[in-house]
C-alpha cells in the first residue's frame, strides 16, 4: 500500500494552493511538500489559514485554486481513496457521545471498511496505545480533556494511516496531559508514521517537528527546521529586560547597538545577541538599571515575533 507512490512522490504536494470563503481568502497561494516519515508543522496565529489548509489536505474541503496531490492522488476525484489512508484529529473533539470509548473506536474502524473482527482487534490495540483500557466501557463525556484527546488520536490511528493530521493536538490541555500526548506522538513518529500538525505553541513545534512553516495571513512566511529558523530569524541568545512600570519606548534609543536587534513588547524589551551575557554587561555599562534581566536561548517564539511583528493572538 505504501509502495511506489510514496517512494517517488511527496505525501503532500501543493502548488499555489488557495482557499476562499466568499470574499475572504483564508489560504493565499501556498507551496508545500511533505515527505514520508516527516513530522511537519504549521505554526501561526489563529486565522493564519492553518486549519483551512489542514481541511484541504484531509480532503474534506476542496481547494479554490492551485494544485494539490495527497498520497499521489487527486482530492477532488479520489477523496474516499485518500481519506482511507489518512488519520484525522480535528481541533475540537468530535467523539461520539452516544457510544462508549471502545465503541467509538470500533464504530470508526467500520467507516474504513474494516470487518467487525478487525475493528475489535484494532480497538483493543488502540486502547493500549491511548492508555484508556480502564475507561473502555465508559461513555466519552466524563473523560478528562487529555483522555478525550488521546481517544481522538487513537481513533485517527484505527485504520493504520500513512499520514496523520493533527489540528492543534494539545490546545487546552494541562502541562501533564500535553507531555503525555507528546510522548504518544513521538512514538508514532518513531514507527515511521508521517505527522502533519498545526500548533500555536512554539515548544510543541520544537519538540515534535522536523520541519515547519510559519503561516501568517494565509501565506507561508518562513520554512525550515526549528533550529534553522531560529538561526535565520533570531540570534542564538535573547535577553529579556524589564523596567518596572516605566514606559519602555524611552529605552530603545539608549539600547541601540546592543546585540543585533531590539524589540519592544508591551511588558518587556528583547535584545537579540550572539552572547547574552556580553549584552547584559553593555546594558549596565550604559547606566541602565533594569528591574529584571533574563538571558535565554532563542526560541521559535522569537522567530515568530520577528516574522509577524507581533505576539500571538489567542
Amino acid at each position, binding site marked *: 500500500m505504501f509502495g511506489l507512490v510514496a517512494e517517488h512522490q511527496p505525501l503532500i504536494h501543493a502548488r499555489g494552493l488557495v482557499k476562499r470563503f466568499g470574499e475572504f481568502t483564508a489560504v493565499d497561494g501556498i507551496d508545500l511538500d511533505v515527505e514520508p516519515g516527516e513530522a511537519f508543522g504549521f505554526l501561526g496565529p489563529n486565522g493564519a489559514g492553518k486549519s483551512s489548509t489542514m481541511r484541504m489536505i484531509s480532503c474534506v474541503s476542496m481547494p479554490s485554486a492551485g494544485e494539490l496531490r495527497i498520497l499521489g492522488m487527486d482530492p477532488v476525484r479520489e477523496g474516499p481513496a485518500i481519506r482511507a489512508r489518512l488519520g484525522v484529529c480535528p481541533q475540537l473533539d468530535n467523539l461520539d457521545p*452516544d457510544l462508549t470509548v471502545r465503541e467509538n473506536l470500533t464504530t470508526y474502524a467500520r467507516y474504513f*471498511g474494516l470487518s467487525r473482527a478487525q475493528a475489535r482487534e484494532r480497538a483493543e490495540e488502540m486502547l493500549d496505545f491511548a492508555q484508556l483500557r480502564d475507561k473502555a466501557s465508559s461513555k466519552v463525556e466524563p473523560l478528562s480533556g487529555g483522555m478525550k484527546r488521546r481517544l481522538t488520536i487513537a481513533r485517527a490511528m484505527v485504520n493504520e494511516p500513512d499520514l496523520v493530521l493533527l489540528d492543534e493536538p494539545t490546545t487546552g490541555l494541562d502541562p501533564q496531559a500535553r507531555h503525555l500526548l507528546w510522548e504518544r506522538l513521538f512514538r508514532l513518529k518513531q514507527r515511521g508514521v508521517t505527522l502533519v500538525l498545526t500548533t500555536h505553541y512554539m515548544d510543541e513545534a520544537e519538540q515534535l517537528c522536523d520541519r515547519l512553516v510559519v503561516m501568517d495571513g494565509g501565506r507561508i512566511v518562513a520554512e525550515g527546521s526549528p533550529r534553522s529558523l531560529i538561526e535565520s530569524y533570531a540570534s542564538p541568545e535573547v535577553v529579556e529586560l524589564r523596567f518596572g512600570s516605566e514606559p519602555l519606548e524611552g529605552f530603545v534609543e539608549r539600547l541601540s547597538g546592543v546585540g543585533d536587534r531590539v524589540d519592544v513588547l508591551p511588558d518587556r524589551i528583547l535584545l537579540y545577541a550572539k552572547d547574552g551575557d556580553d549584552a547584559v554587561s553593555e546594558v549596565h555599562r550604559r547606566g541602565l538599571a533594569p528591574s529584571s534581566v533574563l538571558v535565554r536561548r532563542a526560541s521559535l517564539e522569537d522567530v515568530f515575533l520577528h516574522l509577524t511583528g507581533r505576539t500571538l493572538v489567542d
Partner: protein
Amino acid sequence: MVTLMVARQVSVGRVGAVVGRNVGALRSGASYWLVLVSGFFEPLLYLLSIGVGVGALVGRIPLGDGRVVSYAVFVAPAMLAASAMNGALAETTFNFFFKMKYAKTFEAILATPVRPIEVALGELTWAMVRSSFYTAAFLLVMAVMGLAEPWWALAALPATMLVGVAFGAAGMAVSTFLRGWQDFDLMTAAQFSLFLFSGTFAPVGGYPPVLAAVVQVTPLYHAVELVRGLALGRVEWALAGHALYLVVLAGLGLWVASRRIQRVLCS
C-alpha cells in the same frame, strides 16, 4: 442519469457502517429506548381514544366502494401511517439535527472514506428501521383488535416502510436548514397539522373544497390513502399514484439532504 451517478458512488458497506453506528447508540443508551417506546404509544392512544372512544359516538363510515365500516376501522390505518411518519421523523429531525449540528458526528464520519450521500442513506435506512418497528407493532395491534384482516395488514407493511422513507428523507432535508431548537416548534406544528387534516379522522371528501385541495398536495394525505387502501383491501390504480408521490418525495429529500451535508460540512 443522476441515479446512476449516485449509485456508482455509494458503497453498501459504508452505508451499513453509518447504520451500525446508530445500532450501537441504541444499545448503549437507556434514554433512547424510552423515546422509542413513547413513539409507539402516541398513535396507539389516539386510536383508542378517538378511533374507539369517539368512534362509538360517530357511528359507521361508508368507504365509497359500497362497504360501510366502523369508525375505528377507518381511523386505524391513518394512525398506522402517522406512526410511520412519526417514527421516521423523530430519527431524521431531532436525532439527525443533534448529530449534524452539535455532536459533530457527521463531521467525524466525513473525515473517513464515507461520503455525504452515504451518511444520508445510512441515516435514512435507520429511520426506516425505526419506523418499521412502530408500524409492525401497530399492525399487530390492529390485527388483534380485528381492525384489519391479517393478510391485508401484512400487505400494508411495505407501504408503511415507503411512508417512513419518504417522511424520513423529507425531514432530513428540512433538518439541514434548521438554525436551532426553536425551529423545531415550527416543524412540530406542521407535523401536527398534517396529522389532523390528512384524511386521518374524517374523509377528505367531506372537507371544504379549498382545504381538500391543499390537503391533497401534502404528503401524509398520500400516505394515509395508500396505507388505508391496502389495510382495508381496496386495491385500485390510485394507490400507485400515492406510492409514486412518496417515492418522488423520498428521492428529492435524499438528494437535498446529501447536497446540504456536503455544503455545510465540506466547505
